[in-house]
């Protein structure tokens, strides 16, 4: 794909200037226009703007901006980014305490939302629009302009052939013209019947084809713009949310329920699709043997859902690569873990807490998970690990052998005291603030399923009752998604057109034969920026067709080689 940014100055030469060559000098146009104003200083204020605009929309600027775009993306992939891994960003602050704040100011921890990155692609798109729009007008103009006149000496063209014809020059050219028209070439015939005068002397026809190339070029660039706009629309009107659901639990899609909610700028809570979903069962299977032992084989979350409150209940299996689509919103299975069920009783034996408590995996391979249990009324809190397939190693550490719950166990440290849950300040349900609490017993207490730990000092007890699993679901709504896809596919279509369609011209001239009967017809052809090659073959076959089946082989003169 070439020549997006041909400056205007050279373009005007094309329609009229035949003397320099049938295709004008467009390809070399940048040599003059691209370098811009150092040769021609702008006249005044408006001249500056015009000159600046020329600079912006020049090919060279586009190149520089493309490089900057590529270069600017590199830190976004190498440094931890706030959007995808905030804890890694925190880690970076810890390990680079002096450098990190400066990097944050430069936007290096959120590169793709940083103003300087936005400036690069906005400039690039401004440059793009500034070129594409005028070129669209020029394309329309050139589609209306007829092809140039046939040059006098067709033998000087890159491809040329000649053949004798039994028809008179006029008729031979007519026959050629009709064949070319059959191939959907646009034609130009001499005016005033071929009498000498305005350069239209002789019998000739000029034909041109291949405007789709430029059309493809423009479609490609405009589609990129469309992708950008679609992304913007998605960002404004879409939202992403996360939700953790335990087996047996349900949730309604409302902001209060969602663990995380990232709305677009113009999204409010009432824009959420009002569906409800219950997680009936979650099944995870792991490879038990072979090279991938311990790796997940399949995940399946069986859910019952209704698109609207009171609407028809449906069931579905959400799996990785198989999201649930509800009311234009997509629900994805993102993660999973275990939620052991605990029962905590106070010193008097009264049950203070009983619930499946989600533990968060610390190791995604073995699903060793961390969690806390809070029973404020019993003044008890617990912190510890859950291990799906427990083994006590030789040096006394508790580890998990396998991610499936083959031998589940928990190991807890107990705390007693005021958990601080009757205060204004929110707490994470996954964290226990142990300040002001008294630790119970020295080492963590290990419990297998069904076991009870009676706490010393009559403080109460905790029982590991049973086990459930939880899934984390991502709920996303992106109205710009489908438009972005459509624009992306259009871009590819445009690319293919601009690469593989050639703009080419064929000329046919006929002069009376020396012997007096019939004529000698010369065919010439050339192509402009033949990216994929193959014009030579096209010319050969067209010439053969023009010459007719029963004519002797045309006398070829052509450039060969690759």
């Amino acid at each position: 794909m070439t020549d997006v940014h041909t400056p205007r100055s050279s373009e005007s030469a094309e329609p009229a200037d035949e003397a320099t060559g049938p295709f004008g000098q467009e390809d070399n146009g940048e040599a003059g226009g691209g370098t811009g104003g150092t040769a021609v200083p702008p006249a005044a204020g408006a001249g500056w703007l015009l000159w600046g605009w020329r600079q912006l929309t020049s090919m060279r600027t586009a190149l520089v901006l493309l490089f900057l775009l590529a270069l600017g993306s590199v830190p976004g992939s190498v440094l931890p980014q706030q959007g995808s891994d905030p804890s890694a960003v925190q880690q970076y602050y810890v390990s680079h305490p002096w450098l990190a704040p400066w990097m944050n100011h430069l936007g290096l921890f959120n590169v793709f939302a940083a103003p300087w990155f936005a400036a690069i692609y906005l400039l690039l798109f401004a440059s793009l629009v500034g070129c594409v729009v005028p070129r669209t007008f020029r394309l329309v103009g050139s589609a209306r302009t007829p092809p140039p006149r046939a040059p006098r000496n067709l033998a000087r063209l890159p491809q040329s052939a000649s053949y004798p014809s039994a028809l008179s020059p006029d008729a031979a050219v007519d026959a050629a013209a009709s064949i070319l028209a059959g191939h959907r070439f646009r034609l130009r015939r001499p005016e005033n019947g071929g009498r000498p005068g305005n350069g239209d002397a002789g019998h000739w026809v000029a034909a041109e084809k291949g405007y789709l190339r430029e059309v493809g070029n423009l479609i490609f660039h405009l589609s990129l713009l469309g992708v950008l706009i679609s992304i913007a629309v998605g960002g404004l009107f879409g939202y992403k949310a996360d939700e953790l659901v335990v087996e047996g639990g349900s949730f309604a899609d409302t902001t209060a329920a969602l663990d995380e909610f990232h709305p677009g700028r113009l999204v409010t809570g009432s824009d959420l699709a009002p569906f409800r979903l219950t997680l009936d069962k979650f099944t995870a299977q792991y490879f038990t043997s072979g090279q991938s032992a311990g790796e997940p084989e399949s995940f399946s979350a069986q859910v019952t859902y209704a698109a609207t409150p009171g609407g028809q209940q449906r069931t579905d299996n959400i799996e990785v690569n198989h999201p649930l689509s509800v009311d234009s919103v997509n629900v994805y299975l993102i993660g999973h873990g275990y939620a052991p069920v605990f029962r905590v009783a106070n010193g008097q034996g009264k049950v203070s807490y009983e619930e499946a408590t989600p533990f968060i995996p610390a190791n995604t391979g073995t699903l060793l998970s961390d969690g806390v249990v809070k029973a404020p009324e019993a003044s008890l809190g617990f912190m510890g690990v859950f291990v799906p397939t427990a083994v006590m190693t030789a040096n006394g550490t508790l580890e998990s052998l396998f991610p499936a719950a083959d031998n589940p166990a928990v190991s807890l440290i107990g705390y007693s005291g005021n958990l601080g849950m009757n205060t204004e300040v929110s707490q994470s349900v996954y964290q226990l603030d142990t300040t002001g609490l008294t630790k119970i017993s020295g080492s963590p207490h290990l419990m297998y399923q069904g076991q009870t730990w009676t706490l010393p000092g009559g403080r109460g007890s905790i029982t590991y009752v049973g086990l459930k699993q939880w899934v984390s679901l991502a709920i996303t709504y992106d109205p710009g998604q489908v438009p972005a896809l459509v624009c992306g596919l259009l871009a590819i279509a445009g690319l293919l057109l601009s690469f593989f369609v050639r703009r080419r011209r064929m000329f046919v001239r006929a002069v009376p034969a020396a012997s007096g009967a019939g004529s000698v017809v010369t065919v010439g052809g050339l192509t402009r920026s033949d990216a994929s090659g193959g014009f030579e073959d096209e010319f050969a076959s067209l010439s053969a067709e023009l010459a007719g089946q029963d004519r002797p082989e045309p006398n070829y003169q052509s450039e060969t080689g690759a």
Partner: protein
Amino acid sequence: MFRAKRRTVITAAAVIAVLLAGALAVTLLTQGKGNASDSMVEYPVGQRPVAPDFTATSLTGTPIKFASYRGKIVVLNFWGSWCPPCRNEAPMLEVLQQLYGSKGVSFLGDDVADTPQNALVFDSSVHITYPSVNDPGYAIVQDFSQVVPVSDTPTTVVIDRTGHVAGLVLGTVTYAEMTKLLSYAAVTK
């Protein structure tokens, strides 16, 4: 030559400056809004949204129909025993219940993401006497979020005698805010 070079620099700088400003605007525009902070919303008479009806089970298992509360001012508090600010404001709500319960004001809790047992444990520990409905999946909250801007727990919604939402407080509510809302809700004409 020097003039042209200076103009190059200045024009380039101007274009880049203009675009950085635009880029900044774009960046700010596309960042999502954070959660709504503590704030009170009041609806004047005539513009009050209809409170969605619901039927649910109380923590003790008895059915509760919201429609049966028509004719009283209802204070509906979304809370959970796992939520410290909710636990913090509950005794204050209980006090208001004592003061206004006989004057046509009913207090009702909507216990979310919780088990009835855990919620009852909390209620009995701080001696809450008003009932709560069990709403583990936020269904009732979702219904309300279609008409009023509910965002997080806790949220307290005050419904007037005609079954319309008079106002709500997002986040924790203070004693003063409650008394203001109650007198606001009392006016229905």
